[in-house]
């Protein structure tokens, strides 16, 4: 088990290291290895971790990271939204219901969702789901259709709309940035609680 980290120096470019904890992951038996081909300039923290992390711990870490990050925008998030989202995150990561092949929530995807919410790009009370690769998906149901948005890293989104327009089904799908959602979903806005205002 190795952990890369870098040290900035005053006189030269950063020095890159790996801390090798060996196969046991015992932090008391570390060894420093000078990394020869490190591409990262970012310092990282060295953690002690057991080699095999329990499923419950992995699920807790995913929800805990999301909840902790929510704190940075909590002052802009309605308390009721926050409570509802946290309850959904807990349900989505329920160890008893968890399928081993699934991936816990990716924090970067969750950030894109929350940022879209606090900046008013989306609203309402969507159901939440997690894709196989850990991306958060928000789903709005209405009497006349359904809107699904998958939130990806860096405020990118993929959307899928199924909607009845004058009694005929209409489908639209696309990929864009969260800040463009209101524009691309404008034809479906204001209909039965869909997200775009």
């Amino acid at each position, binding site marked *: 088990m190795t952990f890369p980290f870098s040290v900035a120096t005053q006189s030269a470019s950063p020095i890159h290291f790996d801390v090798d904890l060996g196969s046991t992951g015992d932090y008391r038996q570390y060894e420093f290895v000078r990394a020869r081909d490190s591409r990262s300039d970012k310092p990282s923290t060295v953690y002690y971790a057991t080699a095999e992390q329990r499923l419950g711990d992995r699920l807790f870490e995913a929800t805990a990271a999301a909840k902790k990050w929510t704190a940075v925008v909590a002052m802009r998030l309605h308390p009721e939204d926050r409570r509802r989202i946290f309850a959904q995150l807990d349900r989505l990561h329920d160890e008893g219901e968890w399928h081993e092949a699934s991936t816990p929530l990716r924090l970067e995807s969750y950030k894109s969702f929350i940022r879209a919410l606090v900046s008013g790009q989306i609203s309402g009370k969507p159901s939440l789901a997690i894709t196989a690769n850990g991306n958060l998906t928000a789903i709005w149901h209405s009497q006349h259709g359904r809107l699904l948005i998958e939130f990806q890293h860096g*405020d990118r989104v993929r959307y899928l709309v199924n909607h009845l327009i004058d009694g005929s089904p209409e489908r639209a799908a696309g990929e864009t940035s969260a800040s463009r959602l209101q524009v691309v979903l404008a034809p479906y806005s204001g209909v039965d609680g869909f997200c775009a205002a």
Partner: protein
Amino acid sequence: MPRLQKYPAPPIIDSIVELRLERKFDDSEISRIVKAIGKNYDRVDQLNEADVSIRVEGQKVTPSVANHRPVQILSNSDQTDFFRLERQKLHWSRLPPYEGWEALENRIEIDLQSLPKKVGFPKLERIGVRFLNRLDVPLGSDQIYRYEDYISVHIALPPLLNPHGPYMWTVVKEFPEKGLGTKITSGVVNQELPFTMAILLDIDVYTTANLPEGRDALFGRLNELRHFKNEIFEACITDKARANFQ
């Protein structure tokens, strides 16, 4: 009835109270404290932190691990309330949404009341109140983030360097007449909201003088530190910033 907060959307991103102790807890005391205070929280995590030192002499680089520290972190299920126990430190923090000083004070009081009798109220070496605030400065119509309209402490720069990118400053000042010290740091941090620039205003107020020897006296002293912290905060922001917290 809870007192209304001054600002409906306070910019606080972390509120911390720290007690540094005169002596170190031994392993059995740490176990007892975790068992007793753990009942007030949903989760207990036991970690080990290590200080890594790197000595660079010319081409010779010698890394080593200087210290290992056992750290116990107790937290609630929402991951907003934390109690961190180190050998010589008790540390409480509250992440947003901030529910006011009284709520934080109340939690500290409950935890201190839960301390095992054998441990008692520990002798203190330093107490501190530290609040980290993030001011979200909106992008101006001229595509410039005018953070100086939100924070009243400015670095006077020659025109050549204006407008500029990230900045960072730290001010340290002792107030002997109050028996307090403060360290204030500000700088540009990661943007969290779209079309804003995030400015950190980190205010740490501490004292090593007239340290309380019991719980009641502790809260009186913590309140003094907190009021002084608020005074500094108000002195460092502008009305435009205040309007942003509504």
